[in-house]
């Protein structure tokens, strides 16, 4: 079954179902399938059904919005009042949030009940969802394989139809890469479009929340809810509300698609290369033209990212010290020992590695060689995109170099894991919007993702391209048998 949030909203509007009924169906599916997938950290049926009943009452009172009553799952990085909010970490394994993130407030205001909090890589640091304190998430297409990360629980929940939609966050590819590996559609907005207030910080200059769903049209509807100015996030952009669905039906005739030669090189495996090529042909049939563009500095994006993101993380995660919230070590002699043991016991090894890299690159004598150099490369990487967008409307390429890999396959070598995000990281460094949508399957039946990159604030155009592609293809309707 593929129920888009658009179709569910229509059923609700026609009175053919209720929010309580929908939520009961999804909760039953979660109860049946979550033990095998581990997509959710927290499910609270009573709370969900209370929110659903309130949505039904709102509809009965004639005050329903477009999506009122449609349920959604939230990545466990978003603080939600009264919900355990763990960020996938032992450090926050006892943290019941006393407040709502801006994104959560927006979905509550829209009347969308929360189906639960989804599993994720610890503090969003990972590309396979294997660093979670709550255990790995399994890919619904093959439970021996990873769903990607860090929004792996959200991706698996949507792919397995345990939720019609979910929220995610993307610092270096954490919405797009798991969307690709699980065959769903996910969008990372332009930096600053979605408020980071109440979204637990990893690398503040890169983190951005976004929607994950089965179609581009659903992502547009969800982005209409999520986006908006919020004075509590100092980097939230003061822009008017946009309707991200406004361009969905626009024909693609005359569209110029940029194909970066660096994304079609040696690293691309046969099936992924073939599927992306076929998608390009499909878009050409719809009237698009292609133009080769160059992103010569994008090859440095992984290196620059693994300086900048850990540097910001080492600062952001200094707040987890066992004083104001979260875990505190049971035994300590003095304040320093309390800090050191709390953090040694509360963080997993990937988080510790990144904090240590960050502490090192920011330390005396190394700042210029690492942090400053990485910031200069970030400028060069962003400028490549500015040049490329002089020649095209959207940029297209693969989302990930491979399809879903086996659990444990890349855990021994952090560097190999980091290269999973080779096509997505540059987009975060530049602050551009990007999305992934399904464009085929490999020989083993695993989904392949197509990445679209838009110019700043060109989400509506990117969604237009994705929607037109989805009208002409059916990859996004395929669901795993569970």
């Amino acid at each position, binding site marked *: 079954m593929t129920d888009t949030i658009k179709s569910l909203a229509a059923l609700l509007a026609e009175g053919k179902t209720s929010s309580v009924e929908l939520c009961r169906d999804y909760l039953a599916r979660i109860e049946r399938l979550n033990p095998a997938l581990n997509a959710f950290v927290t499910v609270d049926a009573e709370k969900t059904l209370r929110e659903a009943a309130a949505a039904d009452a709102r509809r009965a009172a004639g005050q329903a919005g477009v999506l009122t009553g449609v349920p959604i799952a939230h990545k466990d990085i978003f603080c939600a009042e009264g919900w355990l909010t763990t960020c996938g970490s032992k450090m926050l394994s006892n943290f019941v949030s006393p407040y709502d993130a801006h994104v959560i407030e927006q979905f509550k205001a829209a009347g969308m009940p929360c189906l639960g909090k989804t599993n994720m890589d610890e503090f969003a640091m990972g590309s396979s969802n294997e660093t979670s304190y709550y255990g790995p998430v399994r890919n619904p297409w093959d439970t021996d394989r990873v769903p990607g990360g860090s929004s792996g629980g959200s991706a698996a929940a949507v792919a397995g139809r345990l939720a019609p939609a979910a929220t995610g966050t993307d610092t270096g590819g954490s919405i797009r890469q798991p969307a690709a590996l699980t065959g769903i559609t996910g969008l990372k907005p332009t930096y600053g479009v979605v408020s980071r207030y109440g979204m637990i910080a990893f690398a503040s*200059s890169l983190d951005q929340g976004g929607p994950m769903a089965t179609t581009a049209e659903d992502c547009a509807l969800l982005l209409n809810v999520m986006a908006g100015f919020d004075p509590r996030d100092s980097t939230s952009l003061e822009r008017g509300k946009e309707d991200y669905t406004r361009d969905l039906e626009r024909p693609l005739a005359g569209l110029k698609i940029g194909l970066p030669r660096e994304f079609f090189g040696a690293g691309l495996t046969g099936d992924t290369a073939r599927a992306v090529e076929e998608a390009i042909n499909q878009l050409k049939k719809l009237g698009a033209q292609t133009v080769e563009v160059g992103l010569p500095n994008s090859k440095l994006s992984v290196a620059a990212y693994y300086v900048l993101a850990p540097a910001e993380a080492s600062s952001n995660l200094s707040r987890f010290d066992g004083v104001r919230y979260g875990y505190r070590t049971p035994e300590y002699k003095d304040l320093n020992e309390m800090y050191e043991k709390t953090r040694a016991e509360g963080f997993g090894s990937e988080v510790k590695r990144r904090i240590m890299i960050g502490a090192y690159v920011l330390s005396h004598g190394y700042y210029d060689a690492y942090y400053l150099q990485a910031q200069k490369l970030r400028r060069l990487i962003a400028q490549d995109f500015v040049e490329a967008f002089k020649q095209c409307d959207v940029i297209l390429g693969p989302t990930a170099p491979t399809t879903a890999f086996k659990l444990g396959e890349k855990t021994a070598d952090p560097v190999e894991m*980091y290269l999973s995000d080779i096509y997505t990281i540059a987009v975060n460094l530049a602050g551009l919007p990007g999305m992934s949508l399904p464009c085929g399957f490999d020989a083993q039946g695993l989904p392949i993702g197509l990445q679209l990159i838009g110019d700043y604030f060109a989400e509506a155009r990117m969604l237009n391209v994705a929607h037109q592609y989805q009208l002409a293809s059916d990859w996004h309707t395929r669901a795993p048998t569970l």
Partner: protein
Amino acid sequence: MSLSLQDVQRIAHLARIRVDEAEAAGYQAQLNGIFGLIEEMQAVDTSGVAPMSHAQDLSQRLRADSVSEPDRRAAFQAVAPQVENGLYLVPKVIE
């Protein structure tokens, strides 16, 4: 560049993360692997390039100096490991 075990311990202390000797060797190998990846950066001539700290060129917004939030101390302290009389308790720092 290659980090020594001493470097690892120094970084761990800067980060306030206790790392015992057995763990330190593991971190040393992994961190050196990651720095191997990072070193690619050094080959690029970036003289004259302005560092980019942020995706948008923004100046910090200012707000009126007025009370905007309600008092939610009890709710926020309810999630703290140890509090007393509205204060967060930590081991004694000043004798």
